[in-house]
């Protein structure tokens, strides 16, 4: 299962609920405003700092760069480009977008 979150963890509970309901070993792709959750400043409060130990966490690089967060991703988070996004979707049987 690939989980996709696109909202800031500071604004909605989407990421929080995703982390509660994602099985260990599943993949989580952070896009759009959700990329803040994977930065050094946000990872502790968002729960991503802890989640990287049980989930495969990815962040969409163009969204990270657009927000000036390049180089601020915490360790354990893998940056992917649009092609990588497509690969992730293709590799997993199901995707769940947390609106």
């Amino acid at each position: 299962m690939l989980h996709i979150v696109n909202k800031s963890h500071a604004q909605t509970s989407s990421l929080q609920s995703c982390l509660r309901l994602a099985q260990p070993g599943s993949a989580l792709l952070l896009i759009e405003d959700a990329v803040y959750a994977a930065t050094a400043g946000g990872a502790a409060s968002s729960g991503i700092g802890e989640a990287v130990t049980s989930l495969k966490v990815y962040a969409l690089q163009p969204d990270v760069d657009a927000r000036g967060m390049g180089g601020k991703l915490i360790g354990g988070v893998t940056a992917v480009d649009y092609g990588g996004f497509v690969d992730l979707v293709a590799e997993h049987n199901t995707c769940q977008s947390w609106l």
Partner: protein
Amino acid sequence: MKKFMFVNRKPPYGTIHALESLEVVLIAATFDQDVSLVFVDDGVYELVKGQNSKPIGIKNFSPTYRALEGYDVEKLYVERESLETRGLTEKDLLVPVEVLGSAEMAALMAEQDVVLSF
């Protein structure tokens, strides 16, 4: 036949999500698919008894959840944590549901072919 799961996480009237989800559920049921509905976070409010939306001028669509049985949609799951956080119990809900903990819910999600979020 594919396993479709509809994940409902929004309250009923503030946005169109809850109603649209129901519409798609009925479509999926028409195509004889294995349909299950999940209610998590504020989505549990969709199932609360005694809704009266007349004063706000929006149709009360909550009785539709009781009609789902007629379309062979009988798998309704509610997350226990979401109910408890909101001070609700199964008795506050207008349809029979299965209450699951987060871990059981996560396992159920993982076995679906298609997951649609609302």
